[in-house]
């Protein structure tokens, strides 16, 4: 299959987990992919793993200069058809212990970083491009310890609505992809201990109708749908890929 033949895609948070699985899938479908991440070693590993038709760019989306540099690099190859905005920051904190620094780091990456990831891309986007914002099933829930993370992801869901209105002339579609718990390194990193992570896995499995975590490849499939013409009449929506967590 080659649903993205000759397309150029940018994947932020592309060096691990959901982003890496998506970048791989996009390349398999014929796209040239630029992956952006914060850690050079991880980027190099991901580029080697994907193999061909991929360029890695070190970029922290919370830094506007990094975004400028990212798009200048992409522009040398051509105009962009797909943006998969997957970079995110997560740290579990109860409201009483949230510091302004934690609040800012969460919002600066998840909401502000994603906002400018798209704004800075505007001059480089082809008409008919597809923008995919990765949110979270948790944004529709009231999960203790998730106040800042969920709220920052809820902001993304709102961006998709507004940008659907603002970018309609260029036929650019913006949609949200909302994963439930996914079996990735980031899932475990948000817990202080292995034991905590194992317990969280058990708890989420119990809450989820499909009774398991998602595989990164399952998120990539949904991303491919939203990125390609398969979803040509889908705009401004929120697609949950959460094993039924928010549906029941």
């Amino acid at each position, binding site marked *: 299959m080659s649903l993205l033949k000759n397309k150029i895609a940018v994947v932020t948070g592309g060096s691990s987990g959901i982003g890496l699985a998506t970048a791989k899938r996009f390349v398999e479908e014929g796209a040239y992919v630029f992956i952006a991440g914060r850690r050079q070693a991880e980027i190099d590993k991901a580029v080697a793993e994907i193999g061909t038709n991929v360029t890695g760019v070190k970029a922290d989306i919370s830094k*506007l200069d990094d975004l400028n540099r990212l798009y200048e690099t992409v522009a040398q190859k051509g105009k962009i058809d797909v943006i998969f905005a997957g970079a995110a920051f997560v740290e579990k904190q*109860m*409201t*009483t212990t*949230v510091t*302004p620094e934690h*609040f*800012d780091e969460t*919002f600066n990456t998840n*909401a*502000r970083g994603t*906002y*400018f990831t*798209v*704004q800075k891309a*505007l001059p480089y986007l082809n008409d008919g491009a597809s923008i995919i914002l990765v949110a979270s099933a948790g*944004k*529709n*829930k*009231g*999960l*203790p*310890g*998730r*106040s*800042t993370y*969920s*709220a*920052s*992801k*809820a*902001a*993304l*869901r*709102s*961006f*998709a*609505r*507004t*940008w*659907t*209105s*603002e*970018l309609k002339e260029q036929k650019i579609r913006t949609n949200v992809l909302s994963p439930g718990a996914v079996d990735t390194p980031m899932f475990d990193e948000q817990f202080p201990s292995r034991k905590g992570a194992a317990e969280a896995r058990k708890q989420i499995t119990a809450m989820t109708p499909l009774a398991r975590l998602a595989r990164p490849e399952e998120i990539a499939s949904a991303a491919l749908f939203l990125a390609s013409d398969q979803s040509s009449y889908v705009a*401004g929506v929120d697609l949950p890929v959460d094993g039924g967590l928010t549906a029941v």
Partner: protein
Amino acid sequence: MKRYEHKKVVIIGGTSGMGLATAKMLLDGCARVLVTGLSKEGLESAQKEIGQHAIVVSSDARSLTGIDALASQVKAEFDTIDLLFVNAGFSIPTPLGSVTEAIYDEMFNLNAKGPFFTVQKLAPLINRGGAVVLTTSVANVKGLAGQATYGAAKAALRSLARTLAAELLPREIRVNAVTPGPIDTPILGKVFPDKDAVAQIREKMSGMVPMKRFGTSEEIAKAALFLAFDATFTTGAELPVDGGWSQL
């Protein structure tokens, strides 16, 4: 009527519009009320209108030190409170391409970060069985061109209502949001300084609302007070008061 006798209430953004209308309704019901505001005109007119019965405080809802100082003052005046109404907020309509970092930060600081830390700092003063009411906006579920940052910040706030509701459950404090559509308040004149522009916007917005009119500040006040004192089996919810705009 002494409907709100012995109730102690703090209203953030209570010197004009919806906040002021709520303060008046509470004062009519014999509550003790503290309102905050920032603009000099707002503080002076509120002092004149309700200053005999209510405490009018100058406080910047975006400033963390301001919020700390407010918490100390509330503690000194009231010791504990029954309702925290977090109502301050406004929009700077700007299309995606022209949003600067400064506009982005202003929208999120005022509409998301400020409210978060206001709840964090004042929640310890809320009595068991008390309530928090947050003012969101229909913009949080609509894609209104020019409202990407405001709508997203309000969507973040809507998400906070869910998480904070979960976290404050053990203390039997309910957290809900009232969601205004277009309301006839002085803020419209602040957002659009040009008088002709205001008239045009007013006509356009009225046309979009199923009820074909603006709501009144009193209609918001009634809903906020319903959520605060009567909706005893409702938490984490959002009550649209928008002439049907977000629902029909």
